């Protein structure tokens, strides 16, 4: 497991704001958190440390502004904090290796990659995002290609 339980909570709370549920499922109901954990143990193992650091910094930012971890904040406060970080507006020191904007932008990408990619990647359960936008690969059930 590349993340501590606290970091995992922060990740889930963040994903829930990056792609929230509405009349269609959001990132969490689609398994996008598991998709990201899977990437961090395989294809993107080299990024695990910086993303884990970023999640710890996210909680530190939340604590510095609101006295609570990110996951405990109301959605409006979470959104305001994400907007600030995307613009690199921080209230706590970030390590030289992880800028706030680079960290949040990377998670924005990862969330969308999981949510909008093929269900086999693990972050688009039941192809919910595809049904939402009107995409179906229309592949024949039994391919005739050798």
């Amino acid at each position, binding site marked *: 497991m590349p993340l501590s339980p606290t970091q995992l909570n922060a990740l889930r709370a963040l994903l829930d704001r990056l*792609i929230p549920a509405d009349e269609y499922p959001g990132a969490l109901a689609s398994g996008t958190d598991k998709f990201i954990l899977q990437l961090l143990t395989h294809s993107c193992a080299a990024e695990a440390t910086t993303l884990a650091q970023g999640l710890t910094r996210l909680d530190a930012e939340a604590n510095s502004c609101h006295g609570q971890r990110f996951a405990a904040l109301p959605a409006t406060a979470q959104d305001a904090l994400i907007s600030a970080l995307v613009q690199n507006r921080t209230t706590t020191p970030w390590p030289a290796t992880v800028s706030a904007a680079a960290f949040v932008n990377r998670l924005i990408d990862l969330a*969308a990659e999981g949510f909008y990619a093929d269900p*086999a990647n693990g972050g688009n359960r039941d192809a919910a995002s595809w049904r*939402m936008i009107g995409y179906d690969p229309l592949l024949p059930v039994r391919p*005739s290609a050798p």
Partner: protein
Amino acid sequence: MNASHSIYDVIIVGAGLGGGIAAGVLAEAGQRVLVLERGRDLRYRDIPGDHLRHHRLSLYGDNTTHDPAGHPRVFVDPQGGSRTVFPHEAEYHNNALTVGGGSRVWGMQAWRFHPDDFRMVTRYGRPAGSSLADWPITYADLAPYYERAEHEVGVAGDHTTTHYAPRERAFPLPPVPSTPTGAWLARGAAKLGWNAFTPPLAVNTAPYQGRAPCVQCRQCIGFACPTDARNGSHNTLLPRALATGRCTLITRAHVARVLTDTSGRAIGVEYFAPTAPDSAQTERRTAFATTIILAGGAIETARLLLLSNSPQHPHGLGNHSDHVGRHLQGHYYPVVSGLLPAGFENPNLGPGVSIATTQFNHGNPGVIGGAMLANDFVKLPIIFWRSHLPPDIPRWGLANKKAMRELYLRGIDLRGPVQEIPSPDSRVTLDPHVRDRFDLPVARLSGTTHPETVRTAEFIRARAEDWLRAAGAERVWSSAMDLRLSASQHQAGTARLAADPRDGVTDSFGRVHGHNNLWITDGSLHVTNGGFNPALTIMALAFRAAAKIAAAH
């Protein structure tokens, strides 16, 4: 280490597009052919439908490369910084590493070059600092082989509207069906007074050569085709070669060098291959033949020529006048996005490319050459999210999610392969430090295209914007192009054709100057790369060279 010696008439390095064509022609002409391919012969089920790892979006890998860590390259950025890169990274400038090469997963646009693409200097002059040159052959020399490629590989098109390149025969397959977006763009082109027609695609729009037609799925470019309707060398000329019983295909066979004798004659190749079909262990082998053909793609063919140096040829084979690896080019691709009017009925079916214009391939004021412009392939949701949402849509949150569902089916974009003005400094050399899994120096890519390319690309970008606006797109946006190295899927130019050995690497048929029995049949030969996707021209040159070799044997 084991050494096995065998004698063939012809050895072909690379079972990609150009190599596969040559194999078919030569085996059917009675030659005993050995084809060595470093990739695998992948079936449909071996090529995953992974939307993050395929040949249009390869974020964490692709769907054909077997051993990506074993085949690095080195990329040198314009500031001079260099780094080791792997096949899925943009700076690797990959094509597909498998039987069929790029044609296993390609977009199938099968364009003839424009007659003026073969005489760029005659038409425009040579810009200072560029290596722009005329081809030693004309469109008329290649026309019969374009026709062979269209019929033997299988191209769908409408000969009554494809006017820019004169032709004698109709296409063997009816054009891809028209689409609502194509009809909408056609009205836009008509308003502007531009030509617009259905582009030629190498796809079975009807059953052809024993294979099924396209079922218009929505997972097309960059993937394997579920009905095998995507025509490439892997399902046409290569199977024909194998059916003769005279062609042997060895996969996972990586050619390390071409062997020459003291007179410069190519006598064989040295290659690495698995000790047994499924073994991870490899052994070094040697094979001998009367004729050797290189078809590893523009980057690897140049690398192989450089790796095959000898006391007689200290700078590599064919490199007598320092052209090997230079003039590396691809296509600049301006992309212009917009939104179809609200409520537009968009069935969004594959392959998706359904309309093109050749209005701006030549004769553009103030710039050199130009490009064909066309609409794009059916788009995956994640690619739309990454690159085609309007720039002012927030990148996250409910606003982004709503935009995805409201705009996905309204997305439209135009793009065109801009003819590059080659630079001698855009090149493949051997890296002095990094080696591949066989301990061979890897390709080092450095330099940029000539700045004139950027000017032409900006001109074409503006025309694509005009087209979308005239059609009635609700919004139109695009990004400026910058100066960089360009090669990638359309890589070409690194062993250019030249009548005079001082001007290039091979003669006008693809025979390496100074090495009578060493030939090239891939994108390396292109002197310039046309304002069109290059593959049909690669095929035509391969048919022409193979016919010449067959006639001489």
